[in-house]
């Protein structure tokens, strides 16, 4: 069912963001701290092998939140560790997850060329 597919993406994605909001509001954390904690959480959950089932269930609902960044880094490291042992832990990390960082760098550079910041009200 395609509708259920999208519904799961919405609910799981929304829930992960809601957890982030709880960290910010109740835990009184800055956005940077919140995101760092969520990345670490994603990495640990991935190490336990529970993140992939979440992606199978929710698709983009699990791959778009920043937790998936921790997951793919961990999976990259684990996959290389399987092949090459100790060395692979270091070398494999960015195998899976390069797209987020590389596109952020490229688009960041383009944006710096194109845009000028202006004080606007919310």
């Amino acid at each position: 069912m395609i509708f259920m597919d999208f519904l799961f993406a919405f609910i799981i994605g929304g829930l992960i963001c809601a957890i982030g909001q709880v960290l910010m509001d109740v835990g009184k954390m800055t956005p940077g701290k919140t995101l760092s904690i969520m990345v670490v959480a994603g990495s640990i959950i991935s190490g336990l092998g529970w993140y992939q089932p979440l992606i199978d269930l929710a698709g983009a609902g699990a791959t778009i939140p920043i937790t998936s960044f921790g997951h793919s880094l961990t999976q990259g490291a684990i996959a290389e560790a399987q092949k090459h042992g100790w060395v692979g832990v270091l070398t494999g990390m960015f195998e899976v997850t390069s797209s987020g960082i590389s596109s952020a760098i490229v688009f960041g550079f383009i944006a710096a060329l194109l845009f000028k910041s202006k004080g606007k009200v919310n």
Partner: protein
Amino acid sequence: MEQEKFDKIEQEITPRTPYVKNVLKAFFVGGLICTIGHAITYFYIIFFDFTEKTVGNPTVATMIFLSMLLTGFGLYQKLGQFAGAGSAVPVSGFGNAVISAAIEHRTEGFVLGVGGNMFKLAGSVILFGVTSAFVVALVKLILVSTGVIEW
């Protein structure tokens, strides 16, 4: 005025954080961003030869591209004020952190300004992601080689 008396006044007058409202807003906007991401996933699977396993990369890149446009026109900041973690936690928020810093530091030049400051907000996410991935993979490797678990 004594500290305790002031603290009492301060707490009485400072408005409470609207926890429930904020969490609901984060849930809906975050969910919506993920749903858009999901639609992009389908787009790449149907119109290009990406599989469910490989489709993550172009989806993330597209989300960051959209984030660049919204950031550059000053709209992501408005979304952030409304949604809080709802727009910060998705990967577009990571893009916003990098791109807003890049735009802001353009006046100090491309090397020291854009280059030096691009990751001043998002850098910690990379640091903790990489470090934690390293530790998790290492622990797993140790556990596997000592025969406690299997891959």
